């Protein structure tokens, strides 16, 4: 499943999440969302665990659900999750040149979407609903409107400086 060997999963945390959502099959998406919010990705062990804990589910069905929905990632994400919106409006106003420049800037090649130092990961998303301000990117939930390659470089540089300063 995942390419990186995951650090040990704290099952007590997973249990807590299952309890808070309710151990019901119809809550499995909500449970996976909370697991991903906690671990920043879905560790394989957690999927198996959920599949055995809840009645009506199996590890295979949970894996099936986790790979079906775009929101879920089986690979660890970077500290800064950058979402490049490629909805129609953003696409028409140049989201692809932005993505190319971003990947070049972060040295992401050959289908890689997370930097080696685990600082940045890049995702393409379909629409964030800020079409009036296209093209937009979102860094850890903060929307940056009307992006240009120049502005994008600045956003990354600021984050890099912050990281080096810490």
């Amino acid at each position, binding site marked *: 499943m995942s390419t990186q060997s995951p650090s040990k999963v704290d099952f007590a945390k997973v249990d807590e999440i299952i309890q808070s959502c309710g151990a019901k099959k119809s809550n499995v998406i909500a449970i996976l969302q909370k697991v991903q919010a906690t671990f920043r990705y879905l560790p394989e062990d957690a999927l198996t665990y959920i599949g055995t804990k809840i009645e009506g589910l199996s590890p295979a069905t949970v894996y099936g659900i986790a790979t079906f929905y775009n929101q879920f990632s089986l690979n660890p994400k970077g500290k800064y999750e950058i979402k490049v919106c490629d909805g129609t409006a953003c696409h028409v106003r140049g989201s692809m040149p932005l993505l190319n420049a971003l990947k070049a800037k972060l040295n992401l090649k050959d289908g890689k979407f997370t930097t080696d130092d685990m600082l940045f990961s890049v995702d393409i998303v379909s629409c964030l609903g800020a079409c009036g301000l296209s093209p937009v990117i979102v860094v850890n939930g903060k929307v940056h409107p009307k992006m*240009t390659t120049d502005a994008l470089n600045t956003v990354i540089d600021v984050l890099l400086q912050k990281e080096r300063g810490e």
Partner: protein
Amino acid sequence: MTVIQDKQAEAKKNIEAQGTRVLVCAGTGCVACGALEIIDELKAKGVNVSTIQSQKMTVVTTGCHGFCEQGVMILIPDLGINYVKVQKEDVDDIIESLRTGKPVERLLYVDPKTNEKIEKREEINFYKKQKRTSLINVGQINAEELNDAIAFRGYEALEKVLNKMTPDEVVKEVTDSGLRGRGGGGFPTGKKWMFTRAAQGDKKYVICNADEGDPGAFMDGSLMEGDPHRLLEGMAIAAYAVGSDEAYIYVRAEYPLSIRRLKIAIKQAEEAGLLGKNILGKGFNFEIHIKEGAGAFVCGEETALIASIEGERGMPRPKPPFPANKGLFGKPTLINNVETYANVPGILLNGSGWFASFGTGTSKGTKTFALTGDINNTGLIEVPMGTTLREIVFDIGGGLRGGKKFKAAQIGGPSGGCLTEEHLDLPLDYENLCNAGAMVGSGGLVIMSEDTCIVEIARFFASFTQRESCGKCVPCREGTKQILNILERFVAGKGEMKDLDTLEELAIAVKDGSLCGLGKTAPNPVLSTLKYFRDEYIAHIRDKRCPAGVCTAMKKIVITDKCIGCTKCARTCPVNAISGNVKEQHTIDQTKCIKCEACIGVCPVKAIVKE
């Protein structure tokens, strides 16, 4: 006085006590432009039910004002002043203008054609031709305050229904209004309600489809952010009509603000006895749950959405049985879209005749559109059905950016089609759009100029639907893949003329053979562009040329002799493809260039061009 009349009188008093209301847009767009900082600053400086030099004024955090292009927007209804492009630094001047009643000149909207400053919102072209019915309160009220919703007639329709109407009368009123599903299909809403009402079963569900997955559409999101109570009220009326006591709102996870506001609204409505047990003392019980989606476009299809709520992979199933008979957890289920429900309170309050007075013969009422792309006035609009594309693009939208030529309008997202110049005077309604090979869809309207490559856009939509195909049925799973392969060859300059026929054949096969709406409509962008822009396809295939200069495989970026050697481009290039000495003409290493066009943007003398 009835319960709601009582509450309304009190709510209005509360609003009056706020003095001058300063409505600050806090839709997703304006928040990205710093609306929240402006609101904090206004509050910190005293515009918070406090008194500045004996004047009362209150800052109100509202939903989307619509004119996203001009964000952050502020409206002061009492003074009739509308501010655009407001920044945090402008707060002092705005407070001064509140005191004196004289507008801050530099923050007024300037009409680009006449260069005239316009003070009143309703005199701006963008707003003139609009008719807001479902969005009537969006931007007028604080979406997080039940008081505001009540003061603006919220829950009045629900009380009227519970006090005076039988469920059958409600269904009849909605049927008579001519309301049709606003999510895309355009199925008559009244009929859907009638089927669900007639279905046998002790337990029935109501679902709101808020999985607005069309890229380039944000109408439903804005509605939920700006007036969540209207949606809840519409759903409660629907539940009463069909005989349900439990509902789900399925919201896409990409809309965190919508989810937050809906949760707040549900809690408030429950506390006020407008949701929950024995609503308004009339013995009607109704509870609403929120389900967050997880990013799958196919979940916009009703049976896939139901599967997703049940905790399955969001895959559609064949119909019949229709959800009205066998839906969520096998029970009869009514499923409508956000905008459809939002139209319901207005219909019950003002009568079906009022609603039917807008629109065309077969398409009644108003429709929201998300107006985006290469257009001057991007934003959220609501117009009567039957408004022409020309009115939307040129009157409301203010024409194309930089005075460019109109090329096409993509309507209905990945399921829709392209409209061209010949359709500019076509009244937009369900039938006309269907005949033109497009569809109303949820209302995404992306305007494209001569700078957009149609073949690339067709590839873009094909890659979207291919990615989002759930994989259940073969025509969609394999067909969209092959369509995408062919289109990718075209944009890479590797197409052959015979591919055109194969593409058309494939598109028709996918359209006819697919199980659900996703596959049935996925070929629409291809078919409609093939119909109206065949020349452009041929240019890509035969001449290996992209007329719009977009397709990277056929594009070269070069520096002309206008270059002054300022080195700006070389420093900007993310891949260090540009070299040259200071004050001498620079050159681009074509083997390194990724065609991101960053250099074009920074060149002060426009010396870098696309070839």
